[in-house]
């Protein structure tokens, strides 16, 4: 396995003159070829921003993104457009991510057209084949998005991301808008496709169970920072960061009567416009020490690829 994507010191600040929102604040990680890296965190912690900044759908404020060793962040517009063939995205909202005025066929052919792949008939063939692959049929080719259910639309979104045969797919909450039974269909589909096409996923979700199911490694974000990054097993079995621990314990288990030790966090997530000093989590942390209030902990390895950013370790 080789490193497909390397993110170094990624920052994205949204600035108004008065306040700066540190949506992503110095995040680094790598994604290996063929693996799925899951990113979890609560709403507003910067997951989507990270995903989009990697693809340069929004311009990162700082930091470097290397794709197959080449810096994406340094590419000119034209080169970037070419590079996007290999980097695709699946979006959260199946209703908003398809242009309502284009047929499914046109939506799926567009990437091919943009990259000048194939003739018209070849493109059509390819699209029809792909429709089957994602669980739709040729008959859907001429339909408009509004004629589909949420799950079907998400299949179309996935097909669009797949059609240029990319290496990396960033999936930003691809299932969170779907009902449980549909959600599992999509998760299964994504797993199958990964196998079939040797895809690499950066899978963003706020749902810890979903992330656990699909990922090989998982990163936990809090307030624009990566607080813990580890292979899934060790993260779920042995969470190190107090935030991760709280997060995991907060998930309700579908097992009635189960008695669990629950860490209930007090208060709300602070605003990224005004993050606490030192460790961003110290205001809600049950194990907060003096140092946490002043010094920002670095992400360090505690063994076996398990990284944590906490002064406890």
């Amino acid at each position: 396995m080789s490193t497909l994507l390397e993110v170094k010191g990624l920052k994205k600040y949204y600035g108004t003159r008065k306040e700066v929102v540190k949506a992503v604040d110095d995040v680094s990680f790598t994604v290996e070829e063929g693996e799925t890296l899951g990113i979890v965190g609560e709403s507003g912690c910067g997951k989507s921003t990270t995903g989009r900044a990697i693809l340069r759908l929004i311009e990162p404020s700082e930091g470097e993104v290397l794709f197959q060793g080449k810096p994406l962040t340094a590419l000119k517009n034209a080169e970037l457009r070419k590079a996007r063939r290999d980097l695709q995205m699946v979006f959260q909202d199946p209703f908003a991510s398809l242009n309502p005025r284009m047929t499914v066929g046109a939506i799926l052919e567009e990437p091919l057209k943009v990259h000048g792949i194939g003739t018209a008939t070849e493109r059509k063939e390819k699209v029809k084949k792909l429709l089957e692959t994602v669980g739709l049929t040729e008959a859907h080719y001429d339909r408009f998005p509004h004629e589909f259910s949420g799950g079907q639309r998400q299949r179309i979104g996935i097909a669009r991301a797949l059609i240029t045969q990319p290496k990396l797919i960033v999936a930003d909450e691809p299932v969170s808008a779907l009902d449980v039974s549909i959600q599992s269909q999509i998760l299964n589909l994504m797993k199958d496709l990964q196998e079939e096409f040797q895809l690499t996923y950066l899978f963003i979700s706020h749902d810890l169970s979903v992330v656990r199911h699909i990922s090989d490694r998982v990163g936990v974000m809090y307030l624009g920072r990566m607080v813990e990054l580890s292979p899934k097993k060790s993260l779920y079995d042995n969470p190190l960061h107090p935030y991760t621990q709280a997060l995991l314990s907060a998930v309700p288990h579908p097992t009635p009567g189960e008695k669990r030790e629950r860490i209930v966090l007090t208060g709300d997530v602070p605003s990224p416009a005004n993050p606490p000093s030192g460790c961003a989590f110290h205001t809600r942390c049950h194990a907060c020490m003096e140092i946490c209030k002043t010094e920002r902990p670095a992400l360090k390895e505690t063994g076996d690829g398990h990284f944590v950013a906490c002064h406890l370790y």
Partner: protein
Amino acid sequence: MSTILEIQNLKTQFHGENRVIPAVDGISFSLQKGETLGVVGESGCGKSVTSLSIMRLLAKGAKIAEGRIHFNGRDLLSLSEAQMRSVRGNEIAMIFQEPMTSLNPVYTIGKQLSEMTMLHRGYSKKQALDHAVEMLKKVNIPRPEKIVHEYPHQLSGGMRQRVMIAMAMSCDPDVLIADEPTTALDVTIQAQILDLMRDLRDRQSTSILLITHDLGVVAEMCDRVIVMYAGQVVEAADVNSLFERPAHPYTQGLMRSIPKVDADLDRLESIPGSVPLPGSVRQGCRFASRCEQAHDKCLSDTPPLFELGEGRQSRCWLNQESAIGEVQHA
């Protein structure tokens, strides 16, 4: 335990563009005093419409076509609008899914909290405001004296949902209907809110009708559960039996298709297809098209809701043999 709310054969319809959509199609269940009853089901299966029917707050174009809603010995559907108003908020209160939009943005928290007690208890402004502060304390809002003078947009989502709960609890209602109260919240905030609701229920022995699509929440909160599918109840059971031995194939599928946070599953099971629009299946079992165990009868005959004993019910031909009867009106 006594029954406080009983729904019998409730049918609520929408008069759509050129047809009638039976959003809720013959639902019956009852809520006991002090009990938390969970209602689960996929999006669009009629959960919200059921709750709004109870409150008689349906949107324009919706009509309750049939059924009875007994509450404390009265049929809510036969009350006058004025009588119904004195039930709303006072005896049955409701919390909605979206804490962000369920509070009026142009009035202070205090004013919105006071409205209820001024209306139903005839409190003066001052009394009502004091009571509001009291309620905010009960839902663990810090600095309630200050918060009453703030506007909703100055509060976080979790705080707003607490305010909503405080509001709903202001008049000590007998029944609290919570329509997906935590769906819009993060897990850590959800945990806070669920804790709070449990706490309030235990202290005030309010009956709760908890609507959710999250089986985890159901497992943690509820005593009994009804599972809805396409406008109908397909299964009803106490929470333990439901999770241990789901009777209906839909419930079974649902259970197996959720990923677990505490176990690695190689592969999820999934229910293919999606929920049919209410009214689109005219014949047979509404789940048949997605059901792996479906046989001919399922496609041709509409299953009744079978009574399985121990308060369990299931709407599936497979349960016919073990059934001890059928639920009336079903």
